[in-house]
C-alpha cells in the first residue's frame, strides 16, 4: 500500500512538473504572439514593409491611389491630403503630399500610422519615403507639408482596383491622456 502511494506520489510530481512547464510555455506563447503576429502579417502581406526597392520604372497598368487621413481623438491638429487621388503605373513611383497643421499653441509630437485597403495592396506597394517612418514634432501653430513616396511593384495586378492609403495621426503620448483622465477621476472620487 505505502509503496503504491509512494510510487504514485513520485509519478504525480513528475506529471505536475510537466504540466507546469506546459503552462509556462503557453504563457510565453501568448506574449510571443505579439512579434509572431507582426511576422505573420508581413508574410501575409498585411503589414507595411519598409524596405526600399530600386526597381527601374517600367510603364504598366494605370493604378489609382486614394490618400486618406484621420486624426485620433483628442489630438489638436488637422491633416489634409493635398493629392487626394493620384494615378500611377506598375513599376513606377508616386509622390503624394499631406499638410499637417498644429492647432495648438504648444509644440505637438505626433506619429502617423499607415493602413491600406484592400489589405492585399501592401504586397504590391512599398513606401520608399514616408513621413510616417518617424515621429513628427510640430511647433505651435505650425503648418508643415510632408510627403510619401510609393513604388509599385512590377507584378502589380490590374485587378486590384483603387488602393486606399490611409493615415491616422496619433499623439505621441498614445492612450495616456485617457488613462490620466481615469486616474484623476479616481483620485477625485476618493477625496
Amino acid at each position: 500500500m505505502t509503496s503504491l502511494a509512494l510510487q504514485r506520489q513520485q509519478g504525480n510530481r513528475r506529471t505536475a512538473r510537466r504540466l507546469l512547464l506546459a503552462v509556462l510555455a503557453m504563457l510565453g506563447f501568448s506574449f510571443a504572439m505579439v512579434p509572431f503576429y507582426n511576422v505573420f502579417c508581413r508574410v501575409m502581406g498585411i503589414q507595411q514593409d519598409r524596405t526600399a526597392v530600386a526597381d527601374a520604372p517600367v510603364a504598366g497598368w494605370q493604378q489609382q491611389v486614394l490618400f486618406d487621413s484621420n486624426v485620433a481623438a483628442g489630438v489638436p491638429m488637422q491633416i489634409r491630403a493635398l493629392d487626394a487621388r493620384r494615378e500611377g503605373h506598375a513599376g513606377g513611383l508616386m509622390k503624394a503630399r499631406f499638410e499637417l497643421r498644429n492647432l495648438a499653441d504648444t509644440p505637438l509630437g505626433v506619429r502617423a500610422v499607415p493602413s491600406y485597403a484592400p489589405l492585399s495592396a501592401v504586397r504590391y506597394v512599398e513606401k520608399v519615403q514616408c513621413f510616417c517612418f518617424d515621429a513628427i514634432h510640430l511647433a505651435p501653430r505650425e503648418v508643415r507639408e510632408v510627403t510619401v513616396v510609393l513604388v509599385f511593384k512590377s507584378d502589380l495586378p490590374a485587378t486590384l482596383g483603387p488602393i486606399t492609403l490611409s493615415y491616422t495621426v496619433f499623439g505621441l503620448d498614445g492612450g495616456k491622456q485617457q488613462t490620466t483622465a481615469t486616474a484623476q477621476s479616481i483620485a477625485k472620487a476618493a477625496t
Partner: protein
Amino acid sequence: MTTTTDALNPAHPIDHGHGADHGHGGHDAHDHHHAPAGWRRWVYATNHKDIGTMYLWFAFSMFLLGGTFALGIRAELFSPGMQFWQPEFFNQLTTLHGVIMVFGAIMPAFTGLMNWMIPLMIGAPDMAFARMNNWSFWLLPPAAMLLIISLFVPGGGPGAGWTFYPPLSVQLGAGMDFGIFAIHLMGLSSIMGSINIVTTILNMRAPGMTLLKMPMFAWTSLVTAYLLIAVAPVLAGAVTMLLTDRHFGTHFFNAAGGGDPILFQHVFWFFGHPEVYIMALPAFGVVSQILPTFSRKPLFGYVSMVYAVCAIAILSFMVWGHHMFAVGFPATAQLFYMFMTMLIAVPTGVKVFNWISTMWQGSMTFETPMLFAIGFLCLFTIGGMSGLVLSLAPVDIQLHGTYYVVAHFHYVLVAGALFSLFGATYYWLPKWTGNMYSERMGKLHFWWSMIAFNITFFPMHFLGLAGMPRRIPDYALQFTTFNEVASVGAFLFGFAQILFLYNVIHTIRGGVGPSPQRPWDGATTLEWDVACPAPHHTWTEPPSLALVREGLIAQGLEESTHVEELK
C-alpha cells in the same frame, strides 16, 4: 407527496445485493476522525468531496448572481426606452453576466463535479494534490469578490463585454482592473485545478482501467483539463498585456505605438474558442454517463466518442478566426477559418449520432437526469445547427454581433453546459447526500426550465436575423414583441432555478427517503460501488481487478469470459 422511495427509484432489488457485495465504503464510513469539524473542515479542506461540494455551492451562488444580472438585462429590454438603468450600467450588467457565468458558474461547477466524481469513478482515494486543490478553490471567492466590488468603484464595473476588446477596455475606469485581476485569479485556479485533474486521471486509475476503458466523463475531463492548461495562460497573457497598456504605457494594442487592437482579439479568441469546448466537453461527458444508464445499454461507439472529443479539442485551436469574420480579414483567412469551422461540425455530429444510437433499442426510463440529458441533446443540436449557419462566413457577416449569436451561444451554454449540470446533479445527488430527491419536483424543474428556456432564447434567433445588435440597452420598435417574450421567458427561467435550489436542500435534509447504494439500475461505473452517501474517504484501497472488470464488461469495454457469464 409522500411517495415511497421504492416507487421513485427504479433500482432493481437485485442491485441492492450487488452493491452490498462490493460495498467498499462500508468500513470507511466510520472514518470521520480525519475530518476537522466546523469551519476548519471547509477552509482547510483537502478532501476531494468537500472541495467538490464547495465548488458546486460556489458555482450555484455565482449562477444565481449572474442570473440576477441577466434578469436586470432582460428587465431593461422588456420594452424600448431606458426604464431602469443608465446605458453604462447596462454594459456592466452584460459584461459581469458573461464573466460570472463563464468563469464563476459553469467552469467551477464542472471542476466541482470532476473533483467529486473523478476519484470515485476511476477508483482513486483522492485528487493527486490535495492541498493544491484547496488553493484552487479558495482563489475563487476572492475573484468573485473583486468582480462584485468593481461595481462600486468610481466609473463602475468593467463595461467592455466579457471579451474585453481594446481600445474600449483601455478607456474604461478602475472597474476594469478589478475585472482583470479577477480573471487572473480564476485563470490561476483553473490551471491548478487542471493540473490536479490531469495528474489524477493519468496516474491514479484503478488497476485494469486503461485510458481507453475510463468512463467517458473522465475522458472529457482529461481533455478539458489539457485544453485549460493550454489556453488559460494565454488568457492571462492577453489581460496582462491589457493591464500594461492601461497603466504602464505599453502599446500592444494601440495603433499609435505600433500595436494593433485586432491582435488582442486574436490572442483572446485563441483562448476563447477552446474555452467554448472547455465548457461543452464536460457536458458531453456527463451526458455520455447518463444516457447509457437510463437506456440500460452501453455507450455506443466509445472509441469514436474519444476520437471525436480529441478531434474537437484539436480543431478548436484552429477556428478562432470565426469570431472575427467582421474585422476585415483578407479573403484567404476568411476562407480558412470558414472551412475549419465547418469541419468541426463533423466530430460534433458523430457525438450526437452516437448518443442517439445509445438510446436506440434501449429500455429507457425517464427520471430527471435522463430528461435533462435528452433536453441537452435536443437543444444542443439546435445550438449546433445555428452554429453551422454562423460558420458560413458570408452569412456570419449578417449575423455577427446580433442577437442570433446570443441565441446560438445560449443554446450551447445554457441548454448544453447548464442542463448537463442539472442532469449531473440529479444523477449523483443520491450518492452525495445519501437521500433520494423528489422526482416530481425534479420533473417540474425540468419541464419548467425547458419551456422557459425556449421562450427566452428561441425568439432571439428572429431578432438577430432581423438585425438587432447585441449589447444594446435599448432597441428600435420593430424588435419589441420578441424582446417582451424573451424577457418573460427569462424571469420564468429564473424562478425555475429557485425550485432547483429548494429540491437540493430538501434532498440534503432527507428528501423522499434514503437512497440505495445504486439508485439507478443501469449505472455501471465505479462510483456506484461505494456506499451511499459516499463516505468521507473512499477507495483508500483501489477497487479489485474483478470489480473493475465487472463494470467494464457492463459498459461493453471488455468481453466477458465464459466463467464470468456463469457467475
